[in-house]
């Protein structure tokens, strides 16, 4: 491995580059174009891992590991947490609202790429000496030597930066609780005072088959009641409405009973079943 990275790139590396490079680009594109944030995050993670591999291939072993551990492991997870917080299924439509924004963006991106390519093309990067002697004492040692001598101040300052960032993040996200938390009694009293929904909130809809917190319970008249779903889900608009399913089940029941009773009515029953299944599909949508 070490030897491989040190000298002129081997065919193996070339092979690896072309395969993984393609995948990386695809991943990047997916990151940009996926409808749902979660998918974007996953694609990005993939791209990053590939980049980590490239680091390794370039003899930056430490960075490669760090890339995997810190980036893919920590930062991307952070992303995922936030995505969860905001809502996994919350898919933002890719429909552009600002006039001409998309075309301008595409143009800029493309033009920039062209520029960069042109720049790299012009740059004279013929000479190429590997990291042999740089990594001779081992990559990590080399880095450490540099960090703690040449870049020590930068290093310290980065540390300070990290601390600040952490504090800042806390300040931003932390909500100061100004008053004492209300006891249950107080809460109930308040409810009485406000005169709204005295009894505990109804439980989410629980059926034989569906058993999830994101399903609204049905009121006697068959309509779902928002109250039964927890507020967070409500805010995210992630309530699954299965009021239709009940009817479909009813139909399915009838059908089966028919099948059992009317032996000759196979054709009709099949039609019916097909119709039923169609209905089911509709209901599912």
């Amino acid at each position: 491995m070490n030897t491989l990275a040190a000298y002129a790139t081997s065919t193996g590396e070339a092979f690896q580059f072309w395969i993984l490079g393609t995948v990386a680009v695809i991943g990047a594109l997916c990151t940009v174009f996926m409808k749902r944030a979660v998918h974007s995050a996953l694609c990005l993670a993939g791209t990053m891992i590939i980049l980590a591999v490239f680091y390794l291939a370039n003899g930056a072993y430490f960075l490669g590991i760090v890339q995997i551990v810190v980036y893919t492991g920590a930062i991307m997870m952070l992303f995922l947490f936030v995505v969860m917080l905001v809502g996994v299924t919350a898919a933002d439509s890719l429909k552009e609202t600002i006039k001409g924004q998309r075309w301008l963006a595409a143009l800029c991106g493309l033009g920039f790429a062209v520029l960069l390519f042109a720049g790299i093309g012009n740059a004279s990067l013929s000479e190429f000496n590997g990291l042999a002697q740089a990594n001779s004492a081992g990559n990590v040692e080399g880095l450490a030597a540099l960090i703690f001598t040449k870049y020590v101040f930068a290093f310290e300052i980065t540390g300070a930066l990290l601390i600040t960032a952490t504090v800042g993040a806390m300040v931003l996200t932390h909500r100061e609780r100004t008053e004492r938390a209300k006891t249950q009694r107080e809460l109930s009293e308040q409810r009485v005072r406000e005169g709204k929904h005295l009894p505990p909130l109804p439980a989410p809809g629980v059926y034989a088959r569906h058993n999830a917190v994101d399903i609204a319970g049905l009121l006697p008249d068959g309509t779902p009641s928002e109250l039964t779903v927890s507020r967070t889900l409500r805010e995210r608009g992630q309530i699954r409405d299965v009021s239709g399913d009940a009817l479909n089940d009813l139909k399915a029941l009838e059908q089966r009973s028919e099948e059992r009773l009317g032996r000759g009515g196979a054709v009709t029953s099949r039609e019916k079943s097909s119709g039923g299944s169609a209905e089911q599909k509709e209901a599912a949508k």
Partner: protein
Amino acid sequence: MSPVNYLYLAALLFAIGATGVLIRRNAIVVFMCIELMLNACNLTLVAFSRMHGNLDGQIIAFFTMVVAAAEVVVGLAIIVSLFRSRHSASVDDASLMKL
């Protein structure tokens, strides 16, 4: 193959990331695209450090990662509080700069 290709790849990724920043409305995705761009830079740095045969490039890339981490932390915190205040993570909803 010459390692210059890594540069080309990095450039491509960078451009894609930039485009993403400009196109997407979801703040989180925008952040991801920024990360993508940073990574592209890192790749460039690493490639250069290999070409020039010294580790300074890698050091810089390292610092970049740290800074990126910090930035992500703060940024995500901002997004969260934004989401709290206006129940949306869309960048366009925070268009208070409009005349």
